[in-house]
């Protein structure tokens, strides 16, 4: 049996781009399980998409062996965590399986918004956190200043923080030694009844659900009858093991303090809720682990196959994605303009983006998505409260007492010269100013309350462009507040196009309506007749544009009998038409449904 005192379960937390994944790579490399040749650039970022975007989306985990300076061999379970605010939920899951965390801070950039958010999350989970200063070989590195910042702002000891360059392999030994010294060993009772936390699961077509878990107490091996605390599902373990780099490594037994996986021919992912406790069927533990709160989808949008015949494929793809990503939810919906599709819920915009790209890339689907919206609470005159995720379902105004929208607490970290422009941006987005706290002479944290629907479109982009990239941003849901909201409808050639409707703050309706009409005018090709495009609130038109009728469309001369070239032109025309959506007698290109997401001129 493995000696718990030689086990370290930890994760790495950082602001995006501060070098978390690179450090993980170096740790794996230094511990010698992989040769350099076998190292793909970033071992933990498995998904193609993650690698491309340089972000970690899904928690990954790996077990490695480290021979420390004290001559002992230690087992490290490194649990990778996503860095982006959208994936706080995933971070929570990973943290619950750890005993400590490494905080990576960029020596040039210092503390950023997500550094704080992730550290506080780790401290909330009672993890021991030690800092590492990365990128010390950059010319702009100021490690001493960053160390001071960490002690002042976060309040953790940082004087002996390893000064490293993960990229160039400097100082990695120091990090490994500190993992041994500063991360506490787990203290479970191997003889107590099994008590294991499910922190993730994936579906494998051959093995069924693979449960990722952290054993707090007890032990589990092939043949153990286990039971899920929350769902009550019972089954017999087929295989246990740990996470080798990039693959599953079966072993005889998992014992208290270890991190590993269990398979038990479980066909349904719903039987193994992430956060649930696994125990023995015959000898259950008294009490489940606290688990963690389930997060709700914050952003919704309609997802439709570009080719209506691909609806079943889209359904299958969503089903499969959900197996690995419980935070994705979806239900069928029908749109007059777009046909059969799904209303999908996401943690945030990045999550939406990632899912959309995975559907397109991994499942080869062409998609049309509608403008993302948030969940509104509609208080009806009869006292009922409706949680509105699809603008089309908004009841008649006469049945609405009032509406509420989600508000977030936002922290924006920015250098002082950009405070002005950022405050102006927040004002434009209906922000309520709370405070400014300086963390050093020329850097401050701005605190605002912002309506979620004001930040889901292009807030990140606006923030970046107005601060020349120097602002970082984090937010958490504060709650719901009453607001004056209206549904903006778009009429094309007098027909209401349901897929283009959205809910908007009353005061912004005119502006948004005007921009929508302008944008659609650019997107909709000319037809043989004139097409009015109107924005309306409650049946009253507030903006209008017109797509003029097409009166001429001819091919020039047939040059030297080159007929194929002319045919290609006609084919292009026909192909373009095929990819359009018919609303009434107007063909709307699919890009029109998505282009309206980018209405900001700046």
């Amino acid at each position: 049996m493995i000696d718990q005192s030689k086990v370290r379960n930890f994760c790495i937390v950082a602001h995006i781009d501060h070098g978390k994944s690179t450090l993980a790579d170096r740790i794996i490399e230094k511990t010698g399980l992989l040769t350099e040749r076998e190292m793909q650039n970033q071992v933990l970022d498995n998904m193609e998409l993650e690698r491309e975007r340089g972000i970690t989306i899904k928690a990954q985990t790996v077990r490695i062996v480290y021979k420390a300076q004290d001559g002992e061999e230690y087992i490290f379970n490194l649990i990778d965590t996503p860095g982006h605010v959208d994936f706080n939920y995933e971070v929570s899951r990973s943290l619950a399986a750890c005993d400590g965390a490494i905080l990576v801070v960029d020596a040039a950039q210092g503390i950023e918004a997500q550094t704080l958010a992730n550290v506080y999350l780790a401290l909330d989970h009672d993890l021991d956190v030690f800092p590492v200063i990365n990128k010390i070989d950059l010319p702009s590195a100021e490690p001493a200043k960053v160390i001071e910042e960490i002690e002042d702002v976060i309040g953790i000891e940082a004087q002996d923080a390893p000064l490293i360059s993960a990229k160039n392999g400097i100082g990695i030994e120091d990090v490994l030694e500190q993992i041994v010294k500063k991360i506490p060993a787990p203290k479970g009772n191997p003889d107590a009844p099994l008590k294991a936390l499910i922190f993730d699961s994936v579906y494998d077509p051959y093995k069924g659900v693979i449960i990722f878990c952290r054993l707090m107490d007890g032990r589990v091996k092939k043949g153990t009858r286990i039971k899920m605390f929350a769902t009550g599902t019972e089954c017999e373990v087929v295989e246990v093991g740990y996470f080798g780099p990039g693959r599953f490594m079966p072993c005889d037994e998992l014992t208290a303090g270890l991190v590993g996986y269990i398979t038990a021919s479980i066909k349904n992912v719903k039987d193994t809720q992430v956060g649930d406790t696994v125990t023995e069927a015959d000898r259950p533990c008294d009490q489940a682990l606290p688990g963690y709160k389930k997060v709700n989808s914050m952003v919704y949008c309609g997802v439709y196959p570009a080719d209506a015949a691909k609806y079943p494929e889209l359904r299958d793809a969503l089903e499969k994605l959900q197996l690995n990503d419980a935070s994705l939810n979806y239900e069928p919906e029908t749109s007059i303009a777009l046909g059969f599709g799904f209303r999908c819920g996401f943690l945030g915009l990045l999550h939406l983006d990632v899912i959309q790209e995975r559907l397109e890339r991994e499942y080869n689907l062409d998609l049309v998505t509608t403008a993302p919206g948030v969940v509104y609470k509609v208080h009806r005159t009869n006292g009922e409260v409706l949680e509105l995720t699809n603008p089309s379902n908004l009841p008649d105004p006469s049945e609405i007492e009032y509406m509420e929208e989600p508000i977030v607490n936002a922290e924006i970290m920015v250098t002082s010269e950009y405070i002005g422009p950022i405050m102006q941006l927040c004002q434009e987005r209906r922000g309520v100013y709370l405070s400014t706290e300086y963390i050093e002479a020329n850097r401050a944290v701005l605190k605002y309350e912002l309506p979620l629907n004001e930040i889901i479109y292009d807030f990140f982009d606006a923030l970046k462009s107005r601060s020349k990239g120097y602002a970082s941003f984090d937010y958490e849901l504060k709650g719901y507040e009453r607001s004056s909201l209206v549904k903006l409808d778009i009429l094309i050639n007098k027909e209401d196009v349901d897929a283009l409707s959205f809910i908007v703050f009353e005061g912004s309706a005119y502006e948004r309506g005007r921009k929508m009409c302008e944008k659609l005018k650019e997107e909709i090709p000319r037809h043989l007749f004139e097409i009015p495009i109107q924005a309306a609130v409650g049946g009253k038109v507030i903006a209008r544009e017109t797509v003029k009728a097409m009166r001429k469309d001819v091919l020039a001369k047939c040059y030297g009998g080159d007929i194929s070239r002319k045919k290609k032109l006609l084919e292009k025309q026909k192909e373009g038409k095929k990819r359009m959506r018919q609303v009434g007698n107007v063909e709307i290109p699919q890009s029109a449904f998505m282009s309206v997401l980018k209405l900001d001129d700046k």
Partner: protein
Amino acid sequence: MKKAEESLRLYLHIPFCVRKCLYCDFLSAPATETVQRQYVDALIRELRAVKENAENDSREGKIPLSLRRISSIYIGGGTPSILPCGEIERIMETVYSVFAVEDTAEISMELNPGTISDKQLLQSYRRSGINRLSIGLQSTVDSELRALGRIHTWQDFCETYDAVRQSGFQNINVDLMAAIPGQDLASYLTSLHRVISLKPEHISAYSLIVEENTPFYEQRDMLVLPSEEEEREMYEQTKQVLSEAGYERYEISNYARKGYECRHNTGYWRRDSYLGFGIGAASLIDNTRFHNTEDLEKYLNSSSIMEIREDEQVLTGKDQMEEFMFLGLRMTEGISKKKFQDSFAVSIDEIYATQLDELEKEGLLYVEKDRIRLTKRGLDLSNVAMAEFLF
């Protein structure tokens, strides 16, 4: 089995010009006289190869192409008139030695103002049997000609035109262009009326299209083009003014006095067989399309015609039907239902009833006894109509 007497049309491509015009995306470029002569040599080799291949064709049971009578020849470019004196004659002599050219054959050549400094040239064209000249004018306003990157002035054109007439050519086309940068309706109408007053037999009137891979495309954001309304008005006026002057519109962009319609181009729209020579030249032989390499080096150095032919495509029945429709409808005479039936052994309604119905409802097309034609509106919107006939 094709009958031996089925005629054939020839296209000869001369890919040289004095200077490339700013809107031109045709296969053409300036070249030295040496290269031009080498090219003519290669063109002659390619022509002769048809005769040499005749034996193979007969062995395979095919009617040799060289036995087909030639009903029209078109020498296009580029600027064919740029070739040194005698070169066109050399080419045409080879043509006559390889093919049986009908006495009444229409033999056209493109010519640009400012290239006929040697009066002997026009005589040599006449001797070669050329009986139709197509002159690239584009505009009669010098500032517009400069904007297009043309090498000539209106005055140059007039001199060329007079010389051509004096040499005895009785069938002349003039190319005119609308929507030129800096052009307005008044200046366009000036050009149109000046051209009419010269009484050419044929006028081609196109709108400038900014094509990719041209200098205009690179500068497209800076080009000051006539507004859409103006361009539209130019187009409308063209139809009206030319019709009043006795030119009948027989194709989307082509107008002619009665009997002077270009037979060669009409052949393309009727899907007659044609054989192209020179780089990039396209061919249609009994429902097989192919074209020559666009690589000048490769063309000059090739030892057999099979080496230079590319993208051979045997047209399926559906391909042929599509072409029948979108080419035939370019002509104001439209298409014949009976000819469709004879060509494909199926009635046009069986294949295209829905499309014909819909286009007729939209007022783009009308059916009159055996003929199907685009309406005036249909000709203006021909792309919309023609795209419907693709499968």
